[in-house]
């Protein structure tokens, strides 16, 4: 039993090396990682362990998409790793290691678990690129009531309130003034009556003969 497994492993790794030396098959997908761009100082070094994680994550993605089919790390074959950190990979099918899973199936699997794959590497859609698989874009944030209507409402409310105040205030002041002079006139009349008792007669006929008429006629 152990021997069989050992034989299969040797065969698959030989098969993998064989695959890599050939031309890029049509089922392959290019992957490009831009770790330094995404993380800057906190960037981790890309090494074989990271590659293992990549293979494991992709196997996970295939498992989630095709439930029941238990893909393994050995099913994910990675080739042509460059210092850029870019490579291509293919997924070998479970039954027959020489057959490759179609592009469409791989694309579906990647799309479904894209978020998980990104977060495993602390990267985003733009920094972990699968060439040929366009990321589904997040819709722009759109609140239910447009905020500008709210601000507009506030400004217009304030302006209309201001207009009302400016128009109504003078009317109120006029009314107040009307009431006040009525009170002043009352007090005036009292004083007038008082002085009339002591002062010269206010009532009577105005005698024209003593007035200066000259200004009306000219000689």
């Amino acid at each position, binding site marked *: 039993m152990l021997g069989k497994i050992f034989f299969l492993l040797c065969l698959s790794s030989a098969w993998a090396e064989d695959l890599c030396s050939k031309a890029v098959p049509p089922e392959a997908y290019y992957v490009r990682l831009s770790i330094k*761009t995404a993380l800057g100082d906190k960037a981790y070094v890309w090494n074989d362990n990271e590659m293992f994680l990549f293979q494991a994550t992709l196997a996970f993605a295939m498992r989630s998409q095709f439930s029941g089919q238990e893909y393994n790390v050995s099913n994910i074959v990675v080739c042509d790793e460059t210092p850029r950190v870019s490579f291509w990979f293919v997924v070998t099918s479970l039954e027959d290691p020489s057959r490759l899973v179609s592009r469409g199936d791989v694309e579906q699997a990647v799309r479904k678990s894209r978020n998980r794959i990104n977060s495993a590497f602390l990267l985003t859609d733009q920094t972990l690129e699968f060439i040929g698989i366009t990321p589904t874009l997040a819709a*722009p944030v759109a609140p239910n009531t447009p905020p500008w209507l709210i*601000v507009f409402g506030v400004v*217009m409310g304030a302006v209309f309130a201001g207009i009302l105040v400016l128009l109504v205030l003078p009317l109120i002041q006029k009314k107040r003034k009307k009431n006040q002079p009525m009170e002043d006139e009352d007090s005036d009349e009292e004083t007038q009556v008082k002085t009339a008792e002591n002062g010269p007669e206010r009532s009577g006929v105005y005698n024209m003969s003593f007035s200066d008429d000259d200004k009306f006629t000219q000689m």
Partner: protein
Amino acid sequence: MRLVIPNPGLDQRIPTYEDIERMEKEEAGDRPKWDNKAQYILTCVGFCIGIGNVWRFPYLCQSHGGGAFLIPYLILLVLEGMPLLLLEFGIGQRLRKGSVGVWRAINPYLTGVGIASMLVSLLIGLYYNTLIAWIMWYLFNSFQNPLPWTQCPLNDNATGFVSECQRSSTVDYYFYRVTLNSSTSIDDSGGIHWPIVLCLLSAWTVIFICYIRGISTSGKAVYVTAILPYIVLAIFLIRGLTLKGAMNGVKFLFTPDVDELINPSTWLDAGAQVFYAFSLAWGGLISFSSYNPVHNNCMQDAVILSVITGLTSIYAATVTYTIIGFRATDRYDSCISDNIVTLSNAFDLPEDSITASNYEAALNHYNTSDPTTVLGLDFKICDMQKLLSEGVEGTGLAFIVFTEAITKMPGSPIWSVLFFVMLLCLGLSTLFGNIEGVVVPLRDLNVLPKKWPQEAVTGVTCFVAFIICLLFAQNSGVYWVTLFDNFAGSVPLLTIGLSEMIAIVYIYGIDRFNEDLKFMIGHKPSIFWQVSWRFISPLIVLVILVFYLVTQAQKKLTYLVWDPDSENFPTMASVPYPSWINAVVFLLAGIPSLAVPLYALCRLVFVYCKKKRASGQKSQLSAASGPDREFGGPGGR
């Protein structure tokens, strides 16, 4: 120069010095007054400092030789702007009337000048308030994070962005599609865009409330609208100078190119900018100085205002170009890093192996070693000078370049709010002068009943203007605004300014004006003012007018449209105007300019007919009651 055209009856039409002094002592008359000198100065400063100082002057400065442009600008400020300012201040303060009243008092045949001023103020006010409406829209939309012009909307199947947005940019799309929903030509009105209608409504109601009781309310509003822009400019200056690449912009702005001084168009543009910047010939300045106390030192005011305008223009230009420099540097850096990514992806090089400094060397190395691959790559051209000089004038500056720069600054909503509040204040304070130049002549001409209170007059004016402004709320509105901007505010203002100078110097009499100034401020104006009033300023304005007419007549009438289907999209396409535009241009530019001679002609005809009728009646009367005349009838005293 003793050349004065005979002007009979002038003394009966204008108040004498004794009248004015008496009126001032008794505070008789219902003419409004300024609460204090600061209000008057702030109102004039606000009127003169407008949006043009932020988006027109820096462009002119940079395109006409940078620091060298300041030389013609400052020279013409002193030779053209200051004398005209003192002329308007002096005549308003002396004759104590608004623009129509002043010209009617000098000579009834000259009332056309006042009417022309009113028409020009009205036309300019209409499109200026539309700009304010757009600014308000952006202001209302600045209260959210992220700002709405940072994102493109997705297309139908969510695989990419809307094509129009993808090909141009998020800020372009937001301005031309979301804000304006612009159609592809001025013919195609395309219906009313209701967000703009709401913004127009808010703009006109804000003007209404600020000017509801004339200068008694606008004089209080101006404390905010005239001072706030300076504070915001200072904040932006400090923020701008700390941004990366700001000094690139400032250096680009002020690097002098002395060869530009030989180019006549530099001087013409400088002269035109001074004329428009001072809001001369709008009628508002005459009105404002008529509310002054009679012994106010208007000469000092003219000098102060000129100095403030000149300094503010330079200040605003500096701030603008720090932001432009920042944006250009940011774009340049991202252009270079895009190219670096393209190169390193193509040759699978490790990420940080190529930096901005060794990019050129690396490119050459790969070009020599593997030219075919390099040729196939799509490299962008990164030109800093081009980035610094693109789209930096007018609405393009405020709504496209600046909004994009703001999105790249940390804390963008705050900067956006500050910027648009500043533009709003600049525009509002100019509009106060504008509406003064419309409402006061309307009252003087008795267009509206005299019994109506100021509130009603302002309200009716604002309402009618709002209805007319709905023209700009159409989908083709942006093209109408550009049309108004080009034609309503150029030739008519120059002709009115020229008429004003001729009227005061040769019809009112420069000697009489000198005497008035001596009475008002205590000394006669110096030889500088005399020479500039009589020769220099009218000559400069005449030259600008003639050159402007000549260049306009030679140019074909074309305009820029936003057409997603055009070849060079996102660059705007240049399209000829339809033929009916000529009628509109005549309405906008011709009618106000021709109002001066037309009114004089109409009045001549009217007076002639009246005289004929009166002499006909007189001869009838004398024939009927001949003998009675000897004994001194009613006319005997």
